[in-house]
């Protein structure tokens, strides 16, 4: 006879984390804990100029007097910031000049992740910057890009190579005291990716960064800075994994995007940090500040995220629409299962005239998880004739999870239009019966329906990512979902 739908839900939602292996790589770490010395240690390790050290120290001092935000719909034990390694880098014996010199263990890691650098390079033409425990390991394809004047390298490298660009833009979108976690990152960020697309250049390939937390008790604080100069275009992808560990690990990153006049930047994330086990033990605390500014007229920034991992996700990729006619977009699928908590959404701050923003958010909660959409749409006085449309839907699988929607809308001018819609529902019995009647098992049916539900967002992803994202949706809600 028919299986109890609740049992099936349990089966469907008990997928194992498949990236939880641990790579045995020799690490170079800073002493545990956070102090001015730690900050100086990191800065010295990276051979940074004095202004950057001062930027870090300034952020550190601000952080000391700040407090963790409490407004999000999340709960966790207090974080002991002295119990974390703030710097862990794979030890390298010499500078790497080509892929063959990358540590074989690392190559193996990426093979397990299914994103072997070789493969990536050969088959997809995607330039990859792999960041493992905060340090950028290898950037592929740099030469191809260099010909067009595109700079795509690790953040540390950029500090050495193009310090004036870094200095000009660092912290201009996310000030060092923007929030608690941003201040922390600004003090201790270890590495990340840097990307500059020159005037009028359309980046011919997708740029991609993979982040992985490997070492134990390590925090990851990467920093990404993307600058799209006038009339340029780039599509940037970010993926993340972490090994399974019982303790929670902190990830507090900052991504800053600057789009100048007529520039377009598309940023896609598939976030699959270790979510913790079925009992809610372990997993990554993903406290991330991502923000872009459409600085010039007619510029466009688009965020797409598929969030399946992390014990706790706290992130609100935002766009400041400063230039007239600029466009901001946010597409999100957030899946929470077991005891995962997600408080995520977007902020669209309209400053320029005729600016447009779109927010499409699809939350899927299962198990005993909590999944919240939180978003702000603000139309300032100057933002005449601007528009926002937001659609935030929640899908509940099972009756022990929560799905919440917290939109904030503020309008200060009479010519702008803001529309927000949201629905919360479960998969209907009629839909399941219909699928079953066609011979599709309940497990597959849930998979089909969930993927259909998320399709509007998934189709925004670059091709290479879309397939992976669908697979991840499967893994998070179980193998067959996909």
């Amino acid at each position, binding site marked *: 006879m028919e299986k109890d739908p609740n049992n099936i839900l349990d089966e469907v939602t008990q997928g194992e984390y498949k990236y939880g292996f641990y790579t045995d790589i020799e690490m170079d770490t800073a002493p545990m804990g956070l102090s001015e010395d730690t900050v100086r240690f990191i800065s010295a390790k990276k051979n940074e100029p004095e202004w950057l050290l001062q930027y870090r120290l300034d952020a550190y001092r601000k952080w000391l007097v700040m407090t963790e935000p409490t407004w999000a719909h999340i709960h966790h034990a207090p974080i002991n910031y002295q119990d974390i390694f703030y710097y862990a880098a794979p030890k390298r014996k010499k500078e790497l000049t080509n892929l063959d010199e990358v540590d074989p263990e690392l190559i193996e890691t990426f093979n397990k992740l299914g994103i072997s650098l070789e493969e990536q390079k050969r088959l997809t033409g995607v330039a990859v910057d792999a960041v493992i425990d905060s340090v950028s390991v290898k950037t592929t394809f740099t030469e191809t890009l260099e010909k067009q004047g595109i700079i795509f390298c690790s953040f540390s490298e950029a500090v050495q190579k193009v310090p004036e660009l870094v200095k000009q833009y660092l912290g201009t979108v996310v000030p060092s005291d923007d929030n608690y976690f941003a201040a922390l990152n600004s003090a201790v960020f270890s590495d990340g990716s840097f990307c500059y697309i020159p005037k009028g250049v359309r980046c011919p390939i997708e740029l991609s960064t993979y982040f992985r937390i490997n070492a134990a008790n390590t925090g990851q604080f990467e920093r990404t800075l993307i600058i799209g100069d006038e009339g340029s275009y780039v599509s940037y992808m970010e993926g993340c994994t972490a090994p399974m560990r019982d303790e929670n690990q902190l990830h507090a990153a900052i991504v800053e995007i600057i789009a100048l006049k007529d520039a377009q930047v598309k940023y896609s994330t598939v976030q699959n940090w270790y979510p913790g086990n079925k009992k809610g033990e372990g997993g990554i605390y993903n406290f991330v500040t991502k923000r872009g500014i459409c600085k010039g007229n007619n510029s466009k920034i688009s965020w797409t995220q598929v969030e399946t991992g992390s014990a706790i996700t706290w992130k609100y990729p935002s766009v400041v629409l400063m230039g007239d006619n600029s466009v901001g977009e946010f597409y999100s699928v957030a899946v929470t299962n077991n005891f995962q908590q997600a408080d995520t959404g977007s902020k669209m701050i309209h400053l320029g005239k005729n600016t447009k923003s779109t927010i499409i958010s699809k939350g899927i909660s299962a198990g005993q998880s909590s999944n919240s959409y939180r978003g702000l749409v603000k139309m300032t006085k100057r933002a005449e004739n601007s528009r926002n449309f937001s659609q935030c839907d929640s899908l509940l699988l099972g009756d022990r999870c929560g799905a919440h929607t917290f939109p904030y809308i503020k309008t200060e001018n009479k010519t702008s239009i803001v529309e927000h819609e949201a629905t919360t529902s*479960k998969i209907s019995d009629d839909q399941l019966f219909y699928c079953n009647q066609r011979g599709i098992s309940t497990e597959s049916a849930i998979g089909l329906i969930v993927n259909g539900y998320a399709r509007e967002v998934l189709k925004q992803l670059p091709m290479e990512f879309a397939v992976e994202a669908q697979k991840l949706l499967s893994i998070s809600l179980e193998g067959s979902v996909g």
Partner: protein
Amino acid sequence: MEMKGIIMDGISTSFNIKDTLLKLFDDNIGSLSEKDTPEIAEMRRKAIAVFARQGFPHTKLEKWRNTDLSKVLNHDFSFPMEPQTQDVNFEEIFRCDVPGFDTHMISQLNGCFIDRGKTLLQANTGVIACSMAEAFIRHKDHIINHFGKYASISDNGLTALNTAFARDGVFIYVPDNTEVEEIIQVVNLIHSEGDIFVQPRNLVILGRNSSLKLVQCDDSVDDNTGFINSVTEVVLSEGSRLDHYKLQNKNNRSALINNIYFHLEAGANLSTNAISLNGGLIRNEANVKLNGRGAHADILGVYLMDRNQHIDNQVFVDHAQPDCTSNELFKGILDDQASGVFNGHILVRQDAQRTNAYQNNKNILISDKAVIDTRPFLEIYADDVKCSHGATVGQLDSEAMFYLRSRGISMENARMLLMYAFAAEIVNRISIPRLKQRIDDLVKKRLRGELSICEQCVLHCSTKEQKVVFDIDMSKV
């Protein structure tokens, strides 16, 4: 300003009203508690302790971020503890008979019940409409069973303050299986020589399968500053039905905090409609708890504000039991420098399966200086639910404007017609025909700008009717 020396928990004023109130409580605890049962005396003590701890709400609190009480609290208030009736000509003030609007009118002056010798037609069937002061003495059972049971003091400093000082207001009781035929109209007037701070406390109890139509009007008589901190508890027992209206037409110097706690048992049906036409600062908090299967609530509101007026509607709908439905719709038009806030919060608890909840807030901004903050929240812990919400901020539909103007209607009239049509969605849901007609008139007058100085009670608007453009059949637009 030099004057702003005193900081009361995040609020900066020249007068420390908090300390004044705490002292007032200490000085008057004897007379306040005179008729109290031990439980209620204890409740007062707890309540004043909460207020002492929390003080007046300030903009650092999430729910008060966009409503700042600093200015409206910055007055040298008097705090009447007893009804002041000596120099008042009641007949002059309460000329509130709406032609054809047949109501049993209850009058409150400065938060105190005024006995004008009228009796309810159904008084002999056990329906009670009297002062809270009287209820504390004569209807102790009801007070013990219900007073303070729904208005939670722990998270709301103003409700705590009101509870501590609760003394007078309106008490209404409808026995089981009784349909109250008269519409009960409560008119709250503020009339004072100086600035006044009043705290009416009301309790409305509907027995099983009973029904009541209740209209609450808040008006000012003069131009003095009033701060009204009103708390009303409403109990709807199984199968009962309440049709409730709040009409607010206050002067621009007044602040009105209207906290209502509706508690619905199984099968109860509530329709509440907040119509805010004028007021310096108005904050309506409607807390609706759906506490029994099959309960249903319609929570509606319309606000038309201009100049420096501020309107804040807070709606919390608590789906605590399965199979309940709620429907929330607030519409507002803001002109000049007016500011509006809508905070909707629907909570669906884990056991509240098969909940059907809807929430919508629509706003039109007429001026570039008007501001609206809207937050329609959903917090859902049950899976078999249908919940949806929406919020829009915009302007008058340009296509509709074009259509009207293409038919020869002037820009100004077209604008008014569309604003009227926008508000009419709420007005049309008023189920008392005469009241609907009155409100409809008032909305029209409000939109024409004729109601901006309100000397009269809302339902006693004596301005001359004008023949207007509204003869057009809106359904054809």
